[in-house]
């Protein structure tokens, strides 16, 4: 339901504008344009106490080969070296059977996206509590090129992180963007 419905010719006041800003949902935190032929991308200082929950969007990225993308949390420039637990389910295009696989069992990172050469990389992931002193968790769903994939993870340490790193499992990525949004607390 709308907070207020405006009519033709009505003045949009500062108070109304501030009300709408204060009630917006997702807020852009940081956007990085992906450079040329990179195999690792760090986004620093994107998690803070301002937000507890985040969405990360990958758009318009070109992949050099078939790949998955690994996700690490960063404390400054130091990535997680263990602690990720996760399971993913994938289904080949044109099939109906979902297969589960462990993507982390106290691992340094876990999958969060995927792509194949020539078809582009685009997906989103949801992250909870990266900057709180409790477990960080994320989920992803990918309509990749060779498979549909969804995964669930957590990082089993009560550690606060302020950034994240994405690395390819093979080859490199070029162009497009990685955008971090925060969910306004209210």
């Amino acid at each position, binding site marked *: 339901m709308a907070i207020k419905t405006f009519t033709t010719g009505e003045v949009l006041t500062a108070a109304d504008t501030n009300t709408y800003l204060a009630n917006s949902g997702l807020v852009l935190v940081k956007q*990085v344009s992906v*450079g040329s032929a990179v195999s*690792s991308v*760090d986004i*620093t200082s994107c998690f803070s106490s301002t937000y507890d929950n985040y969405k990360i969007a990958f758009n318009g990225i070109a992949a050099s080969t078939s790949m998955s993308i690994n996700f690490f949390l960063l404390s400054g420039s130091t990535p997680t070296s263990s602690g990720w637990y996760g399971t993913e389910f994938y289904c080949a295009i044109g099939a109906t059977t979902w297969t589960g696989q462990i993507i982390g069992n106290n691992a340094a990172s*876990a999958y969060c996206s995927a792509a194949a050469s020539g078809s582009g990389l685009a997906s989103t992931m949801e992250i909870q509590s990266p900057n709180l002193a409790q477990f960080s968790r994320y989920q992803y769903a990918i309509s990749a090129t060779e498979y549909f994939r969804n995964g669930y993870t957590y990082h089993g340490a009560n550690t606060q992180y302020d950034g994240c790193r994405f690395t390819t499992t093979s080859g490199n990525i070029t162009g497009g963007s990685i955008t971090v949004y925060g969910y306004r607390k209210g």
Partner: protein
Amino acid sequence: MTRPNIQIDDEVREMTEEEYEALLATGWTLEGTDETPTAD
């Protein structure tokens, strides 16, 4: 062979030897064969 590139926010540069070794430790390969390689 040159090392892969790393990007930190908006800066792109070639990986240092230490960064490249860390990437290789994840199982990274130049050419991939599947979007769903078996995780560790």
